[in-house]
């Protein structure tokens, strides 16, 4: 590890190739398990336990199984989409105003508000879920979308506010000032100048929030017990499969691929932006 630490740059063959080898190691480390998921999904159910690196006859039977019959996986995907989508949209609407305020206005308790927002994201999910679960039972919200959406705001909102704040803070204040010289009110300056210019930042925040909401498990697991409302994550974890083997790993892997591939594609397409968003503006 330390061997590849910052080092003088004279280029012996080892020095030159070591970083490249390191890169290869990292790539393999990150992708090998993922690769294994994909190839396992592509085997025939009958060679499920073969450990060959490449599936001998390719088969999409596992994918057919996933969507077939009583799994309710398709419905689960839709539910995930509804929950994660709503969380993202709500979060952006609420969070954008707050982030802009934090980035631009000077007021007395700004540090306190910032600290509160960041602190809320540290709370363990389970201590929020248990009382909410009891409340939702009382008000008959169990097995509803809002029972999953509302608690998800607890982690999505701080995340979005924090990301957006740093994006807004990067934008020069002269932008609004110019707009106001031209006769905009502050609200108009925000709507007509800042929002369009902040679009990349907002978009990045949307992706990151969406992925976070899409990956959520504990809330979705606790607040539902009916298959027709459960998200894809919960459904996968409770797969019984169609063929009645003990654990239908083939279809689970296929389902995992289906759930993951859209995210992976999004990540590959927008990697620059996501990295910038994750490291939130300041360092780049």
């Amino acid at each position, binding site marked *: 590890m330390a061997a590849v630490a910052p080092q003088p740059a004279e280029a012996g063959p080892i020095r030159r190739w070591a970083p490249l080898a390191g890169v290869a190691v990292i790539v393999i480390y990150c992708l090998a398990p993922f690769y294994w998921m994909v190839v396992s999904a592509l085997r025939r159910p009958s060679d499920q336990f073969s450990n060959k690196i490449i599936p001998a006859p390719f088969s999409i039977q596992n994918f057919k199984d996933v969507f077939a019959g009583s799994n309710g996986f398709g419905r689960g995907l839709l539910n995930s989409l509804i929950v994660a989508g709503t969380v993202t949209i709500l979060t952006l609407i609420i969070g954008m105003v707050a982030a802009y305020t934090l980035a631009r206005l000077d007021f*007395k308790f700004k540090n306190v508000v910032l600290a509160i927002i960041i602190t809320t994201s540290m709370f363990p999910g389970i201590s929020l879920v248990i009382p909410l679960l009891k409340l939702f039972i009382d008000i008959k919200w169990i097995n509803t979308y809002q029972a999953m959406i509302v608690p998800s705001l607890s982690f999505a*909102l701080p995340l979005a506010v924090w990301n957006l704040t740093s994006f807004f803070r990067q934008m020069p204040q002269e932008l609004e000032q110019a707009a106001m010289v031209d006769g905009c009110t502050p609200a108009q300056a925000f709507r007509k100048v800042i929002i369009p210019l902040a679009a990349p930042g907002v978009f990045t925040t949307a992706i990151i929030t969406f992925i976070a909401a899409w990956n959520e498990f504990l809330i979705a697991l606790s607040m539902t017990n009916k298959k027709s409302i459960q998200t894809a994550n919960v459904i996968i974890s409770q797969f019984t499969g169609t063929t009645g083997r003990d654990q239908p790993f083939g279809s689970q892997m296929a389902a995992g691929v289906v759930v993951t591939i859209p995210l992976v594609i999004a990540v590959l397409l927008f990697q620059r932006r996501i990295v910038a968003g994750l490291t939130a503006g300041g360092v780049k």
Partner: protein
Amino acid sequence: MTVTAPVAERPAKEPKQSKRPQRFNEGTGRLAALLLSPTLLVLGLVVLFPIISALRESLFTSGTKLDANGFIVKGSTFVGLDNYLDIFKGDTGHRFWNAFYNTTFFTVVCVVLETVLGVAMALIMHKAFKGRGIVRASILVPWAIPTVVSALLWKWIFQADGVANQLIGAQVLWSTEGWQSKLSVIIADTWKTAPFIGLLVLAGLQTIPAEVYEAAKVDGASVWKTFTRITLPLVKPALLVAVLFRILDTLRIFDLPFVLVGPHKDSVETLSMLAYDQAFNTRYGPAAAYATVLFIYVAVVAYAFVRILGADVIGEARAKKPGGGGGGGKRWKKKNAVKGSADTSVGAVAMGGGA
């Protein structure tokens, strides 16, 4: 740090001495309150309210009981601190301390491993000029995979006749009680989050100007010295915050052991799983007590971390306050300006592991 406008006095407390030209956003406390209220309201509803009602809930027990006169009492009864006392007694006490130990063990081992691996990855990526795009893309893959899916994936890898056993040429029953199931959780967690720490540290590394290293080289510093005296101190702010959030994330770990190994396994049961299990069996009082204990544990660790190591969580946001947007224009152009950027990684890490 970007050079901000000449330091202005804190706006509120004392009457202003230097009257600067009125900006549109001055004296806007009420406007700020108005604009922040939706966010604070939502957070109050979904975070503050549950925490308080968990506290309240933990003082009650539900279900049927006989009262002093032999009548059946239904619904919640106030039991004071009994739920908490029960936590530490007898069988439940054993289960609690086991979960407490597991939670702490996972947190310490995972975070140490992830930090070491993450820093190593960041250093490699920083050195490599070829293949950086590929690395960045592949490093995001474990991050993007939902924890549940990665848990199932590792469960599949750790099958009795799975690929892990074939690779090590042994027959380990990974999902059985014992060190092996702990190890499987640690491996899976490290796989998913170490690259992520690497990404954040890399961002920190890239802000260190090359001149600093050149100066060290001129002074004849060794590789190791350069690393410990220059690299580490300069990435420390970003690293500390990343580590803090990883710690908090691992303390509440739930999905990974729950799906990878399963509920009711002593070897991997964490506090979150224990609380969930109680709630699942409609024992809300004890569940709330466990959740509250976990909450206090997390709060203490976070507080200690911030106090002792001085992780500056709201970092740049605070530093920027007096200057307002003054330095904005400059920063807009000078993206590579070096900044003490503790806050940068925060939002991201908060959701890194997705516990």
